[in-house]
């Protein structure tokens, strides 16, 4: 069994401030971890992913995430947020099934950016 937990439902951050979104997972094997972003009324876009190797992963739009096996976490960070970063962010765990991977998503964290 597996689950993905995003403890923060909603985060408000000032423009230019740093941002960290938490993600914890429970999975019996080596996890494949992802962060997706969903702008209002839109589909999801992949920000970054972790398969193996360097535990600090760089993504698009200035985001990075760090995999910590001991804490079962994959937190997303950005040093300085922009107003355009206001969106909903989803952490996901990939699990292998037949020809491809299925994704299990967390409930999401909504980020509001204030001027």
């Amino acid at each position, binding site marked *: 069994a597996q689950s*993905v937990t*995003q403890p923060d*439902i909603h985060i408000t951050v000032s423009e230019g401030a740093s941002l960290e979104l938490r993600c914890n997972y429970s999975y019996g094997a080596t996890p*494949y971890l992802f962060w*997706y972003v969903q702008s209002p*009324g*839109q*589909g*999801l*876009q*992949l920000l970054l*992913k972790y*398969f*193996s190797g360097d535990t600090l992963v760089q993504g698009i739009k200035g985001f990075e995430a760090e995999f910590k096996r001991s804490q079962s976490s994959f937190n997303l960070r950005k040093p300085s947020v922009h107003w355009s970063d206001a969106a909903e962010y*989803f952490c996901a765990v*990939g699990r*292998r099934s*037949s*020809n*491809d*991977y*299925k*994704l*299990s*998503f*967390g*409930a*999401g964290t909504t980020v509001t950016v204030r001027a």
Partner: protein
Amino acid sequence: SQTIHQWPATLVQPVGSPLSLECTVEGTSNPNLYWYRQAAGRGLQLLFYSVGIGQISSEVPQNLSASRPQDRQFILSSKKLLLSDSGFYLCAWSVRSETSGRLNSYNEQFFGPGTRLTVL
């Protein structure tokens, strides 16, 4: 380049009415296709996936069904909608792995713009 389309973008339907949501992919062949539902305040739930024409796998028991009549077409249907079917429905595709069992490969899922369904 590849694109994924969903329609309609929004839909309001009465309880008990039928449903048909369509998803099409362009610019790729033999994709894996997925239907997700996002209920208010919740994450995405995988409803169905398909690895080929006519091949449908259901993840959770529900009032919905899916079909794949063509390689790049994925349809989500219901004979009678329930209030609980309201939500945001997302279709996604990914490149199918050339070799099953390749544990180190992952094919990114690309999502469509979604359909917002309201059942009244």
